[in-house]
């Protein structure tokens, strides 16, 4: 019921597809732009960027299908962009401008589009996703419900109520855990006794740990597991060991410098920059340019209108 990737790349090397690099960088620049806009006082409220974790939804991209439901959380921009490549709609949502996915009502944390839904209350979405999975099983066999949560969210009782029911009733549920070692300011060890793997297994739920950020390898590993979620309606917890490179939200990073340095070191962005500097530079410039244009376009739009209350 348990499997793990080797943390280092062994065996055949995976090529990073242009498409994937493009989306990775789209997300990266989207997030950076948000932090800049915040600093410039252009944005209100709060936002949680996924800097360092962009590869998780990018890796899952071809493994998920349009009829799958995706449940996202507070740190969801990458999840959304990997699914819809719609920086305009998302930025408009965050800035409250015309063309916003949810007319500016939901903002960064509350997005609904087709079969994609996020909420700002941690843990709440797991039982909901379980219900959706049970529904899909009847009306859309082969489709699954995927729900993203962080390591800290394993503090919520709702997680266990949901895992229990998902396993009892064979829900095609995929729980993607972005284990970045921290919840807001609290290191995982200070908020979690035991392990995520142990907790999944305790409910009879299959668990797989992904210790690499190599997108091709991740897909190879996950493809057969996701097949079982779909075909056998067998719930699955996939735990990504990942790194939060940025602050929790806007500049609130109280981690010791050493920890931040380590996170940065493991950042795919840095690694790719070293591995293939020229290709990176070209794609990076393109993404930066694109997001910059999006930001200017969206900023120039009139405020969003909310009619269908």
């Amino acid at each position, binding site marked *: 019921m348990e499997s793990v990737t080797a943390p280092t790349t062994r065996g055949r090397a995976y090529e990073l597809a242009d498409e994937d690099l493009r989306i990775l960088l789209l997300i990266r620049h989207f997030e950076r732009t948000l932090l800049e806009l915040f600093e410039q006082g252009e944005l209100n409220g709060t936002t949680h960027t996924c800097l360092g974790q962009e590869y998780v939804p990018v890796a899952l991209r071809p493994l998920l299908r349009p009829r799958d439901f995706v449940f996202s959380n507070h740190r969801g921009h990458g999840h959304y962009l990997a699914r819809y490549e719609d920086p305009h709609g998302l930025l408009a949502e965050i800035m409250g401008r015309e063309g916003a996915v*949810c007319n500016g009502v939901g903002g960064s944390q509350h997005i609904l589009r087709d079969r994609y839904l996020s909420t700002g209350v941690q843990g709440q979405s797991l039982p909901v996703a379980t219900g959706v999975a049970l529904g899909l099983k009847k009306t859309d066999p082969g489709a699954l419900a995927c729900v993203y949560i962080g390591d800290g969210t394993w503090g919520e009782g709702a997680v266990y*109520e949901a895992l229990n029911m998902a396993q009892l009733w064979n829900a095609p549920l995929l729980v993607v855990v972005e284990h970045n070692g921290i919840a807001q300011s609290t290191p995982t060890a200070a908020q979690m006794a035991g392990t995520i793997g142990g907790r999944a297994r305790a409910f009879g739920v299959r668990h797989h740990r992904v210790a690499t950020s190599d997108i091709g390898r991740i897909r190879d590993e996950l493809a057969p597991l996701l097949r079982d979620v779909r075909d056998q309606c067998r719930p699955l917890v996939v735990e990504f060991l990942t790194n939060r490179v940025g602050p929790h939200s806007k500049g609130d990073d109280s981690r010791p410098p050493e920890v931040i340095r380590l996170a940065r070191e493991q950042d795919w962005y840095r690694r790719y920059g070293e591995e293939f500097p020229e290709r990176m530079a070209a794609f990076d410039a393109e993404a930066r340019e694109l997001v910059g244009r999006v930001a200017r376009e969206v900023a120039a739009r009139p405020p969003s209108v909310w009619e269908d209350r």
Partner: protein
Amino acid sequence: MRVAENLNLALHQAFESDPAVHLLGEDVADPYGGAFKITKGLSSRFPDRVLSTPLSEGGIAGVAAGLALAGHPAIVEIMFGDFAALAFDQIVNFAGKSVSMYGRRLALPLVVRCPSGAGRGYGPTHSQSLQKHFVGVPGLSLYEISPFHDNRVLLPRILGRAEPALLFEDKVLYTRQMFGDGIVDGVFSFDLMECGTARVFLDDPDTFDCVLIVPGGLAHRAVAAARTLMLEDEISCLVLVPARLYPFDVEPLLPALSRAAAICVAEDGTAGGTWGGEVAHQIHRRLWGRLRRPVTLVHAADTVIPTAVHLEEQVMVREGTITAALRETLSD
């Protein structure tokens, strides 16, 4: 027909008429059929659509919301309504919010059934009426069963709105008979107003001294109070029993209310931020200057519901609590 049976039939019909309807709850499957037997027979007829769940009130509400989101209208039975407290987040902050917080209306056909109320000696954590805690959440409607409202009409109407709702069900009422054919007893008749509110009257719905407004769980006590007041005090009461508690529209009741010498809203549960307070406020605002006195609210005593019968009686709203309140009101 007993109210429990009527509700059971309503559930069966909901399952028959829509093959997507699901029901979830603890011990709801046959042969047990739920702690109050309201779901009897359902799991035998529709085994795929009845989920007898673990003890996970919050989780169940969430799963049901998920089913609803995926197009399967879902009904939840919370074994004792008190435990809806465990599902407060899912009901108020997910289901209730999601219908509007994404910037457009979202369909979410979800009904959370809450067996409520005291009078059966179940004690402080199994006897509450938590209606008031759920009042005033945009997108979340509150209903209550009554002996006047056929649940075979009410339930499809609730589900048809495709919005999250709570359905409160008085546990003592389960054991009573439904009223039919406009007859309450030898003395009282009833009809349903166009707005859905039941009205119980003596001979003529337009002739009365006082108006008593109560949710369905208090219907028998209110009618008994009306009887006593008639016999002992020659005060005639019109008893109004709405099926939907929230949002509450006082408009169609104003003609009757404006003629009342006194208006009393009685409800189970303690005072403070109640449904009755909400009704009273609407009446005060709409009929200001035309009311002879303020609306009287009747509640349970300001404490927990004790277990022992003799203590429970001291605390609960009884027929006598209502008659006493109306007498006092009229003597002001």
